[in-house]
């Protein structure tokens, strides 16, 4: 359950089905043809992924602030489909999602990061079930610079270590010839609360920069090296607001906050992937990366999908997890929890792009959805 599960090997070929489905998902925006693909898949999958009716009652969800907007879309839709259930949603952070699931305060914990071995030591009955695919973007606030700057893990690591301190420093200019970079300090924003976003970002830095891996490492909360200009912010919303107020800032922000960040005058960069390309976070590049990792995803669902050396694959994506105990207090609660989660991962229900696109999430590849379905059936 530790780092060894993390995929470091390049996957030569993609499973055909996974590719089709991921592509279908990525294109099923408004076009009819995409919709057709989608429904035909639905027909073929119907027996396999079936949403069974709930027993009714109230189910609580709490945790990740990145998943919170998603659950707020899912909950009313599920309640409309199954009026006997009330689905309470709350934010709080991934750490709370995990610990609330451990002590039974909520039935469904939400987390951007998979369970650690010590979490599983505390409660071996816990599962992390992938629900959807999220992406992280690196934003900056530079007045007059509308181009998507090229950023590499190495450059970002140097910025967050305080080695590159100005936007017009040679290290930034060499990656972005021709860009009009202002002579202002770089203010490195990081999350001061424990965060799955920090986990993803520091994993990306660790993978691309051995100094970072040795000195700082990756975690939901790390000891940040001293940079001459830095700020800590709470939540993705804090990152957006802080970056808006701070010209020269750089900030890693979950994709569900993209619309808001763009509206506040921030721009996201292209990130260097494992094969040396600079990739924009688009539906296609995210789907590529997800499809590349689909075959490697273990039965436990625990895998870090960073820098997969996948051609035109955006390098920072992750599964959003439901943290659920396999042992629920009663058979009825277990039945309702299963129903909710089955509905969420079903490509015709919770995983339809019309829901997911509201927060810019992407659907699970079919193989991963199958895997999640199997995990859900273990909830008793």
């Amino acid at each position, binding site marked *: 359950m530790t780092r060894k599960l993390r995929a470091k090997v390049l996957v030569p070929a993609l499973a055909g089905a996974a590719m089709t489905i991921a592509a279908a998902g990525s294109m099923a925006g408004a076009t009819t043809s995409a919709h057709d693909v989608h429904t035909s898949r639905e027909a073929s999958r119907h027996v396999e992924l079936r949403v069974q009716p709930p027993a009714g009652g109230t189910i*609580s969800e*709490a945790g990740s602030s990145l998943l919170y907007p998603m659950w707020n879309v899912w909950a009313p839709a599920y*309640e409309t489909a199954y009026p006997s259930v009330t689905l309470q*949603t709350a934010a709080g952070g991934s750490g709370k999602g995990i610990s609330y699931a451990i002590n039974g305060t*909520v039935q469904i914990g939400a987390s951007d990061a998979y369970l650690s071995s010590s979490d599983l030591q505390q409660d071996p009955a816990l599962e992390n079930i992938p629900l959807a695919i999220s992406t992280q973007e690196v934003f900056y606030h530079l007045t007059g610079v509308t181009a998507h700057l090229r950023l590499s893990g190495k450059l970002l690591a140097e910025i967050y270590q305080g080695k590159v301190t100005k936007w017009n420093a040679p290290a930034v200019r060499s990656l972005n010839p021709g860009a009009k970079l202002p002579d202002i300090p770089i203010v490195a924003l990081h999350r001061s609360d424990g965060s799955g976003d920090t986990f993803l970002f520091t994993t990306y830095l660790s993978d691309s920069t051995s100094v970072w891996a040795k000195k700082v490492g990756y975690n939901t909360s790390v000891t940040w090296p001293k940079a001459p200009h830095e700020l800590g912010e709470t939540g993705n919303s804090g990152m957006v607001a802080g970056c808006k107020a701070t010209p020269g800032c750089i900030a890693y922000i979950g994709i569900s906050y993209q619309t808001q960040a763009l509206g506040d005058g921030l721009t996201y960069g292209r990130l260097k992937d494992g094969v040396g390309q600079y990739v924009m976070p688009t539906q296609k590049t995210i789907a590529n990366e997800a499809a590349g990792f689909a075959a490697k995803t273990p039965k436990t669902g625990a895998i870090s999908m960073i820098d997969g050396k996948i051609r035109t694959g955006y390098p920072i994506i992750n599964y959003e997890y439901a943290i659920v105990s396999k042992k629920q207090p009663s058979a009825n609660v277990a039945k309702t929890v299963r129903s909710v989660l089955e509905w969420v991962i079903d490509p015709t229900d919770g995983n339809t792009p019309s829901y997911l696109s509201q927060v810019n999430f992407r659907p699970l590849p079919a193989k991963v959805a199958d895997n999640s379905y199997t995990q859900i059936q273990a909830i008793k």
Partner: protein
Amino acid sequence: MPRARRRAVFTVLFRAGTVLALLLVLSPAVWLLGGVVAKAVPHWQWNVLWTNLRGEDGGLLGPIVGTLVLMAGVLLIAGSVGVLAGIHLAELGRPGRHGGPGGTWLRMASDVLAGFPSIVLGYVGYVALVVGLHWEFSLLPALLVLSVMVVPYIAKATETALRQVPVSYREGAEALGMSMGHSMRKVVLKSAAPGIVTGLLIGLAIAGGETAPLLFTAGFSSTVWTGSLVHSQGFGYLTYLVYQFWSYPVKHANYLSYDAGLILVVMVLLLLVAARVIVARTQRHSEYRGR
């Protein structure tokens, strides 16, 4: 500088200083309140007051009811405990060593509690009540934690108000043969009422405006309170939405956050007005001057 001149200068400086002090507080206050109003008013819709919250859609009915229930509950629990504790500190405690007021340790416990970070109280509530007693996120743990926060303020306000009741009132009551309890209810508390009401008001404002401890004890729920004290799988209130929705990635949710902020400020405003009215009505019974 001649003495008269210096006195004149000091007087002018003093007068200017008091006005400056007022401006230093009032200008940010106006700035802040104006900001809250300006954010909420342009898109304000009255139906948020009676529409249910569904995910990030709809209105604020559940959280509004929740905040009112929290206030009422705190008034009940912290109000009674705080006023009684204040009575003890002012009237019943043995005098201190130097003839000062007694109950030093009890008063200090209450002062320390008033200075305790609310998030710590919330965390203890979470560990002991939500998890320890399996109450889950619900009304009762939230009420208890809020009450612990608020009791010191009400106790202090009550104590201060009681100490201002002239001794002659008590002596008069005693001379009439009233028992201590009877005079407490009929004379002393009545005459201290304005001060006590002000303390209760502060308590209510705190109860309605707290966020940190509620995150750990009430959780959140978008539905209207069903009447259960425990095991209710979450309890909704307004400050949660201010905190979670203010820069949530959906416009309507941001609006709900601004609306919740405005509603909270209006609630505080109404509390203050209510307190003024009550104070004005009870003042005629009391010796409490000013205001």
